[in-house]
């Protein structure tokens, strides 16, 4: 598995965080372009999860399977939870929640690599 998707997620997550923090700094609320950006991150994360699941289906196993499965379940939930929680807030702090999701997505890719080094970043 090459690390193209994971690297893209890290870059996209950090870019989303910068964009969202800019929205917060400029006192903007959540808007449609921001939701679209979260959607793109979600799709990328689902692709990454799919790649890892395919590898598991191929018979390979990490040292700690339980932890990996936990990460695989939690990862796609992060942008969804952030978007819902951020949309409930009609102020600058909605995008701030999305910024956290972007950072978390990037960190999760590093953690996936630590849990199972065959997942390249």
């Amino acid at each position, binding site marked *: 598995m090459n690390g193209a998707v994971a690297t893209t997620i890290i870059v996209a997550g950090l870019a989303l965080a910068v964009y969202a923090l800019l929205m917060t700094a*400029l*006192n903007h609320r959540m*808007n449609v372009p921001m939701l679209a950006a979260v959607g793109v991150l979600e799709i990328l994360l689902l692709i990454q999860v799919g790649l890892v699941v395919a590898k598991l289906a191929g018979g390979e196993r990490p040292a700690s399977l339980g*932890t990996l499965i936990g990460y695989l379940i939690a990862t796609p939930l992060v942008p969804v939870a952030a978007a819902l*929680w951020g949309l409930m*807030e009609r*102020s600058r702090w909605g995008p701030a929640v999305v910024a956290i999701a972007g950072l978390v997505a990037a960190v999760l890719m590093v953690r996936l690599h630590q849990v199972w080094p065959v997942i390249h970043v």
Partner: protein
Amino acid sequence: MSEPVAPPETAASQPESTRSGPGRLLVAIYALFALSATARAGVQIATKFSHAPVAYLLSAFAGAVYILATVTLIVGSRTARRIAVVSCSIELIGVLAVGTWSLLDRASFPDATVWSGYGSGYGFVPLVLPVFGLLWLRRLTRRGRGAEDVDARQEFTQSAGLNAHSKDVAQWDRDRANRDRVGSDHDRPRQLSPNCQAQGQGYPGGRRGSF
């Protein structure tokens, strides 16, 4: 970006104030730490408890405190706020104590906890988070509005055995409004009509109150 500028913290004067405004961000980060600390401790205790029992138990304790803080910040009633202050304080003491302990006695910590090295494994967020939590709760208490008002009004209504439309409750509201007026030039953004916002007249207090 031609997006309309969000009104600063009008939600802060609503009963849900602990979880809105900056609290929205705070709850999100608390929820993240509640999940990650608890899940990590759970896996470690289930699979390799004897490896570093002190570290894993402390991680589990930290996770429990994060869950408590998350829930109480979301609920935001007067009692919940008091519990939130206590749990944020425990967190701050915990991260300082465990941080120092982990540096002095490395043998007890063959594996890291959320709080070891003052939360250095988590970008020092565990050190900063309770400080912001306490500042946020103090700010709400100082403002003296929101959930406490709703609670106090409810208590008054119940204690007097009245319904919410009685004369006494109306008087309570007037008293409350008078108290508001006295302090209104401070940190309370006034509610403007949508019309007024559309004309871009801004807020009497400028952007004060937008943290």
